[in-house]
């Protein structure tokens, strides 16, 4: 019950925060626009004057990709490097926003003592500023968890190697490929989930003990493994459903005219908005879940 309740409250919390969704989308959009301008400048340079450009809107041409990568690979490589830098900067920006999201959400929890009447922005950015340093440290400490993640995958890879090298069963090789993928994602999500709870705990208790909280979260997740996973995968499935819906809609749009290209782009933005909304939903639901467990000792103690 608690899982479903947390899930729906979390979803509701996210619905009630359109500004927050907008901020997440906007940051995503702005980071990606840098790439847009770089790519657009590059393609204007290498493609827009070629006669091939005339027909490209109607029909793709693999030769164009070959020629661009072969003859302008240096520039393309530079853009790729910039994209990687943007990616890492975006991780930092997300960390910053995460503090804002969690702090704002915490303010409106039923267990919250102070009912804040401040404006959204001031709460959001106060939270973002206050917790950025701690979350950054958490990110560094989390390398321990990621090391564990790598180790588990390596062990599994080794075991699969033993199984598949002795046999010749092609089906087996195929299934083992998928098994490896499942293990990979299961533990990937597991680490993300632990870090989510660690951050939530840090915010709820305004704690500075980052390292301890990370291991507290690991213990918390392990103690309630069924429920934490249940809640997490409800959210993951929601994400998958959103993605499928997007793919279906997108598959109807053939990008053969400029209008359709723009329509596809707008649909894409709606998808990113939905993703931003779900990110908040993830945080809100997990916060509800953690908080509901946290209230019990308070009540019995008081």
């Amino acid at each position, binding site marked *: 019950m608690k899982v479903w309740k947390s899930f729906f409250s979390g979803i509701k919390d996210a619905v009630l925060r359109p500004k927050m969704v907008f901020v997440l989308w906007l940051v995503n959009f702005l980071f990606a626009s840098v790439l847009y301008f770089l790519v657009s400048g590059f393609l204007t340079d290498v493609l*827009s004057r070629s*006669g091939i450009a005339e027909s490209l809107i109607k029909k793709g041409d693999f030769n164009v990709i070959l020629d661009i990568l072969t003859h302008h690979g240096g520039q393309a490589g530079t853009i790729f490097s910039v994209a990687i830098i943007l990616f890492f900067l975006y991780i930092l920006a997300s960390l910053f926003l995460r503090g804002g999201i969690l702090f704002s959400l915490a303010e409106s929890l039923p267990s919250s003592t102070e009912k804040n009447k401040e404006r959204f922005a001031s709460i959001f950015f106060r939270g973002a500023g206050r917790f950025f340093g701690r979350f950054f440290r958490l990110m560094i400490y989390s390398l321990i968890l990621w090391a564990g993640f790598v180790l588990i995958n390596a062990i599994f890879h080794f075991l699969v190697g033993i199984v598949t090298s002795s046999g010749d069963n092609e089906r087996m090789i195929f299934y083992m490929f998928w098994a490896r993928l499942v293990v990979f994602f299961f533990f990937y999500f597991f680490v993300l989930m632990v870090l989510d709870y660690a951050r939530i705990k840090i915010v709820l208790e305004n704690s500075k003990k980052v390292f301890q909280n990370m291991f507290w979260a690991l213990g918390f997740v392990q103690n309630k493994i069924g429920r934490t996973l249940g809640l997490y995968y409800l959210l993951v499935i929601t994400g998958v459903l959103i993605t499928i819906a997007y793919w279906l809609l997108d598959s109807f749009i053939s990008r053969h005219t400029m209008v359709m290209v723009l329509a596809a782009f707008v649909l894409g933005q709606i998808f990113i908005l939905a993703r931003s909304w779900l990110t908040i939903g993830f945080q809100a639901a997990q916060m509800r879940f953690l908080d509901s467990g946290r209230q019990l000792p308070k009540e019995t103690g008081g």
Partner: protein
Amino acid sequence: MKKFVFLVFVLSLFFVLPAAAARSKHIVDYRIKARLDTEQKAVDGQQVLTWLNDSDVPVSELQFHLYLNAFKNNRSTFMIESGGESRNFKLDEQHWGYIDVKSVRILYGPDLTDDMEFIHPDDDNQEDRTVMRLLLPEPVQPQQKIMLEIEFFSKLPKVFARSGFHGDFFMVAQWFPKLGVFQDGEWNCHQYHSESEFFADFGVFEVEITVPREYIVGATGKRKDQTENDDGTVTYTHYQEDVHDFAWTASPNFIEVRKRFTLDEPKVNTEMIFLIQREHEILKDRYISSLSNGITFYSRNYGPYPFETITLVDPPLRAMGAGGMEYPTLFTAGGASFIPEGVRMTEMVTIHEFGHNFWYGMVASNEFEEPWLDEGFNSYSEVKAMSEYYGKDTSMVDVLGIKIGDFHSQRMNIIGSGRLDPILKKSWEFYSGGSYGVNSYAKASFVLLMLENYLGEQVMGRIMKTYFERWSFRHPKTQDFIDVAEEISGLDLDWFFDQFLKSPDKLDYAVTEVTSQEVKMPKGIFDEGEVLTGEEEVSEKKPQKTYKNRVTIVRKGEWIFPQDILINFEDGEQMRETWEGRERWIRFVYYKPVRLKSACVDPENKVVIDINYLNNSRLREPEKAPVTKYSLSLMLFFQKLLSLLAG
């Protein structure tokens, strides 16, 4: 008396010349008994070999290929050149392979076992044992035959570089002592190199293959006989004339599918035999349809497939080092049960390897010395066949909206490659394995495509048919093809072949300038002190405005090829120009009442080997729509990535 002389003459012809029905001159005749030892992963063999000295000089030695010795140790020329890695597979050092010639004797004559020695005609590698010389007690006179009895033991490596075993799958190729080719008064018998294939003479092969009963066998040629033995083995006898090699495979895990293939025009009637791994049963229909496509395409375009059988061997996924390889009337394909239908690797390999029955099997050029004559011709045929059956832009990949043609995949190899080697080179003398591959396959294929575009499809079709007809069951060289091409086209094509086969350069023509400027009214001081201001009324004869339109074409590569140029004006008018393409650049200027819109070299994309298609055309005003389209798509892709991975 006269009659008697005539009779002797006729009889001698009968002994020396092949029977009238034979397609090739039977220089060799191999009768081999082979017994597979599935425990030892080895073949015990006895062969009776007849060789005809078809030259006009006496020959006092024979030279044999002992290919399996390439895998004997890490000092063989093959292993040194390849670094122990071939076709993305490493040699398993627990399972070296070798061939041991246990004895040689002249049939019913003296033992010559002590007269064997290893030689190294290509390098000074004393450790290489892939070529053996046998000194004969007496020379073989012209048009005389010699018959030898040879006992050998072939230990197979774990599948590596085409041959070997994997579990209970056996691909027995290059496995017996095989004679080189006595050509131009000497033996042509090269060592086994990392980047080389094979060369041998035509003749007759009859091979008795003995394997445990549960093994299914496929082999070159037609099955003549099948005998159950008391020791739980079966002996299969295969026979084939007019081939120059013999390969076979055995495994208990094959599903055998036999299907008759017939074609009316030209007449083809052959049995397709598919030996498919049990777990690849899902590939059965793909194999059947692609092989049928292959036989149809090659028969229609070059000449009817003449043999009674064609065997497709599907190796296990982990023995792919044996996959994708041609032998006469038998070839290995490749695939995996989980490869989606839109990824046409299986089809491409099937068509390509089948196609080698034409370019290698019948038109048997020297793969060591002129690899382009088989791989290039076959890649050219393959790309055309793939386009015909699976679409030019979709023949390799057509899955999830991603479309890639075989043409693209060949082109991808060419445009980024270095200028290190010409196409015409001995296979082991290329700068690297990659350079051998690009030049012998894709670049050679594109040179032929370009020749086709230059001469026209019909003329090229006639050239290919004539070359096939004239040279099948023989050993043509590059000049023989050039001669056919010049004869059929009636053109001197030396300029073409000299460039594209003998120099390592590239071809790149570019439109570098497309401008249009309004011609200003006369201004300043002219004859007799007349001063014009540029604003005078224009005379009635002249149009209101005139534009000076300029198009500049630059030759950026070293290779020269005549270029068609198409010029578009804004009112829809088109102009065509031609340029020999010799100078480094050329400029066309047009004074017209309309502006230029665009210019394009090679508008029909005939000069396929041009390394950059983007610069083949130029617009006066940039076209921004695709730029926006792709920039937005990439931006959205990046947004999704950020949101999914870093959100």
